[in-house]
């Protein structure tokens, strides 16, 4: 690991800005030995709920131009298995771990945060607010500033861990949602989650995904993600984990210049498992150009 790539992301010192994003890197081990988890500044594990969630029926994914749709449905074994099985294995490795937290009610999110309170090896929580808010009739938590305020406030009270709120781009005004998260006590913002999309199988005359709609990710969404990071950087003073379509060191720098102090990679791992290695070696050359990481430089 190149020491010169280290960067401060809120209260966390990361060995480099590159973060494996939730849902694309499992619990850190599936890509071994091609991608050891240690090469990342941090890894975000799969969205974790209080009880196990089964996920959606297949097909769950479909390729799209320069990207893909997924409708995994947040399949996960629940926080208990995370704590018993995966976190101890991760704790034995030299890697920062962020747990992505999901729930259908505020209570479920709080429950996960409580269970993780004080557990060794959990460096931060990332609240995935794209889940359907069952109490509010299915619209996601992340689409309403009031729901964000309520949720973040409740989880904030339940944990000492740094709290990252991961926003959905499927809103009219992402800056407003980010400000709500900041006011409710979030320590950082992560964006973007996937864009809502769909694909149709014209031979079958029906949606490809069993779930009908899915989340769009990959290079196709990069311009939207950069715009969201840029807008949120201008609207709040929170550190940002920027992500969406990152595939090269140039992309990492673009997100940093838009305002991110950590940059996630997900879908590009599928297309090119060597991308993290290439990015990190190319990043060293970029890093040498600047006295410090050019966080937010594109705003000047």
């Amino acid at each position, binding site marked *: 690991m190149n020491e010169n790539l280290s960067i401060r992301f809120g209260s966390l010192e990361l060995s480099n800005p590159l973060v494996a994003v939730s*849902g*694309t*890197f*499992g619990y850190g081990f*599936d*890509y*071994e*030995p*091609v991608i050891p988890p240690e090469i990342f500044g941090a890894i975000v594990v*799969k969205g974790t709920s209080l*009880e*196990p*969630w*089964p*996920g*959606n*029926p*297949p*097909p*769950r*994914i*479909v*390729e*799209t*131009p*320069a*990207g*893909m749709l*997924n409708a*995994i449905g947040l*399949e996960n*074994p*629940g926080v208990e298995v995370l704590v018993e099985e995966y976190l101890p294995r991760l704790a034995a490795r030299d890697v920062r771990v962020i747990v992505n937290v999901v729930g259908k009610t505020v209570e479920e999110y709080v429950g996960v945060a409580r269970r993780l309170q004080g557990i060794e090896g959990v460096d931060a929580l990332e609240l995935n607010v794209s889940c359907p808010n069952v109490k509010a009739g299915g619209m996601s938590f992340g689409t309403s500033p009031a729901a964000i305020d309520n949720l973040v406030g409740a989880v904030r009270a339940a944990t000492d861990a740094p709290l990252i709120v991961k926003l959905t781009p499927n809103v009219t005004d992402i800056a407003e949602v980010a400000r709500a998260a900041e006011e409710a006590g979030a320590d950082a913002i992560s964006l973007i989650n996937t864009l809502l999309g769909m694909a149709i199988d014209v031979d079958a005359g029906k949606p490809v995904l069993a779930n009908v709609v899915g989340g769009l990710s*990959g*290079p*196709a969404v990069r311009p939207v993600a950069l715009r969201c990071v840029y807008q949120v950087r201008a609207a709040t003073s929170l550190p940002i984990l920027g992500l969406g379509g990152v595939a090269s060191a140039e992309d990492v720098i673009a997100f940093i210049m838009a305002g991110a102090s950590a940059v996630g990679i997900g*879908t590009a*791992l*599928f*297309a*090119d*498992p*060597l991308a993290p290695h290439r990015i990190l070696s190319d990043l060293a050359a970029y890093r040498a150009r600047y006295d410090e990481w050019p966080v937010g430089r594109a705003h000047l």
Partner: protein
Amino acid sequence: MLDPSREGGPEVFGARLVHNAPEGRARRLLLVVEEDIAPVPGQFLQLGVGGGGETYLRRPISIADWDGARGLLELLVLPVGKGTGLLASAQPGSIIDCLGPLGRGFDLDAAGPIPVLVGGGIGAAPLVYLARRLAERGCPPLTFLGASDHPGLAGEKSLTALSRGVVLATEDGSRGATGMITEVMLRNPGELEGATAIMACGPRGMLAALKGMARERGIPAYGSLEEHMACGVGACLGCAVPMSRPESGKSYLRVCADGPVFPLEEVILA
């Protein structure tokens, strides 16, 4: 029981295409591999097919055959869309970007002395290497191969050489018996006499029929499944297949990492 996946996990490597010839409607690709990938029969590769944004994800393709001594990899590719189309038209000399070997293959120990292999269409691909390894162990299989028509048959020549016997069937009767291969098997129940396991790859309907046959005879049946894949390594949960017996909130298995070969009793094939 041995874990039928490769020790040490997958690698990323470039394989040099040295030969690309038709095999019915499919193409038979021969590639030179420098690494000793030592695959298990039934394992697959995730191939980067280039093509930029239009084929962003990798494509899962079975290891059809492997000659470790010479580092020769064989693939059988049926061009059905953009990605397989690009692969099928790749020129000798080009380097194919491979991730693998991936997944859990066929458990050779479970094959028993008289294994029966069943391939449907391009599904015959992984059976060639499986038959070779079974033959090496002194248990050459009895092989059933079916397809819609003669050009749809794949692997016939290699499988004939490696099996103790081969039964062919096509739906239009253009080669072998007429009908679906599972129908032909049911019409000649004697052929399965003494079989110790069924190992198959092909359409879900075929696998479902084999599941029934195996259950009746009380022998184990293993099938290699297909599902859309993103990572191919177990990380994304994209390639779900429903479990026959869900357990404590877990309802799906991953085709790429828990399979692609499953005991058919463990999965729902509907």
